[in-house]
């Protein structure tokens, strides 16, 4: 079964890259934020602190794994897994380079819907972690997480709808192709700026990262839904968050930054992977920069922003885009 073998090998490589990427993203974040705050950041473990993730990982392995006595055991153990798995399987439909060599299932005709579905399922891990820990801080964090994700999912889905309308296809490979003709202005971030902005904001909220990190607001909820988690289970939550950061950046690149496209990709297909990686890295740095810049938003403001601003604007954007496509305005539709 060569197809099965090929898919397995590709998945293994992808997993390796993602896990390494996760480990070094933590270092990148700490170093970059340190620079923004005029500090140096981790620089003790190895040259330039490059062995920091190894040290962190080893430390977490040797930590005692505490399980609260009153916790709901099965769900308590299941929750971290439910956080990591959706983050990883998002990559199945993302084309990371030109040609079938660098794509796993990016040509399925429901790719964009798959993304919305998987991101919707991702909230279970956080919600259940909060509930199963039997801790008031964790429960509040879990409740906040579900409310936040439900509210922002609408805007996220509708911004993707605008992209699907532009490409007249829900396959992520086709969406990249639709941004190829012409120059850099063909990217959907220039043709769909409103959708790009909404996607960026709602995706940050789905990730529950600053300024939307009131799911784990330290000052009021200690660590939110992961208060009771320690050792490797805590590391899994950490991994889920960072892999999801990479996934969301990869999605933003695919939907709005032309995916793997760039000069000379036809001559050297391997170059497309480099372009993709550079664009993803740019998104990641922007996300970390945002965290270092903006304070946490208040809870009622978060809800108001999601329901009263982002969702109506996203709906209006979809209607306007559809109208422009039907009217045949140049630059819309294909």
């Amino acid at each position: 079964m060569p197809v099965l073998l090929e898919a397995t090998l590709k998945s293994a490589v992808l997993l390796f890259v993602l896990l390494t990427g996760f480990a070094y993203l933590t270092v990148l974040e700490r170093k970059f934020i340190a620079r923004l705050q005029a500090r140096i950041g981790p620089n003790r473990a190895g040259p330039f602190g490059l062995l920091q993730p190894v040290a962190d990982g080893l430390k977490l392995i040797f930590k005692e794994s505490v399980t609260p006595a009153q916790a709901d055991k099965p769900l308590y153990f299941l929750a971290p897994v439910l956080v990591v798995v959706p983050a990883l399987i998002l990559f199945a439909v993302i084309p990371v380079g030109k040609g079938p060599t660098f794509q796993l299932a990016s040509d399925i005709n429901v790719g964009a819907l798959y993304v919305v579905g998987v991101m919707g399922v991702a909230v279970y891990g956080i919600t259940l972690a909060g509930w199963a820990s039997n801790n008031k801080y964790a429960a509040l964090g879990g409740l906040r997480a579900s409310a936040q994700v439900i509210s922002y999912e609408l805007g996220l889905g509708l911004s993707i709808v605008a992209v699907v309308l532009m490409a007249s296809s829900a396959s992520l490979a086709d969406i990249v192709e639709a941004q190829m003709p012409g120059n850099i202005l063909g990217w959907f971030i220039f043709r769909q700026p409103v959708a790009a902005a909404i996607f960026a904001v709602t995706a940050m909220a789905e990730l529950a990262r600053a300024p939307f990190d009131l799911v784990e607001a330290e000052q009021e909820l200690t660590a939110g839904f992961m208060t009771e988690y320690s050792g490797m289970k805590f590391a899994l939550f950490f991994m889920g968050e960072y892999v999801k950061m990479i996934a969301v950046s990869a999605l933003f690149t695919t939907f709005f930054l032309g995916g793997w496209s760039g000069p000379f990709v036809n001559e050297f297909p391997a170059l497309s992977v480099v372009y993709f990686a550079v664009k993803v890295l740019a998104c990641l740095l922007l996300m970390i920069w945002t965290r270092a810049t903006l304070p946490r938003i208040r809870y009622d403001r978060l809800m108001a922003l999601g329901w009263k601003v982002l969702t109506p604007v996203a709906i209006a954007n979809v209607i306007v885009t559809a109208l422009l496509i039907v009217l045949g305005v140049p630059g819309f539709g294909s």
Partner: protein
Amino acid sequence: MADLIVLVLLGAVSVASALGLLLSRNAIYAALFLVLNFGVGAVIYLLLNAPFLAVVQVSVYAGAIMVLFLFVIMLLGAERLSPAEDPPGASFQRPLAIGLGAALLGLAAYVLFIRQPAAIAPATPIDSSPTAVGLALFGDYLFPFEVISVLLLVAMIGAVILTRDR
């Protein structure tokens, strides 16, 4: 053959999760069993070459509706059911449910084993791409589609009015 094995396994998981949903005393577990059941349904749609239905099933039921269910259960703290005690006036429900359930099972057994299998028309493969589904929804089934949209709108307005401060 491989499809048949997968289908049988899926059927087993589906029945098990449905039983789990009915028998668990904890509402959170019941909700999660229902999510599992929806997931099995999605995989069966995939087996039937209907990927659009499969992902819609996951994103609408598992991703949106059941998250809301969980949210409400957790918010109300209503996850624990008190040990079985029939509410007054409901004593007739249990025998009635057993009778109706037995009737349904008997009917299913009749259709599956006694009625001639030849009477069942073979399934014809149809186009199940998002394009085809969209064309059917907004073409042949436009009227029912619009009626359902209006119905949902009415429900939404009703919910807003019921929860509004007086």
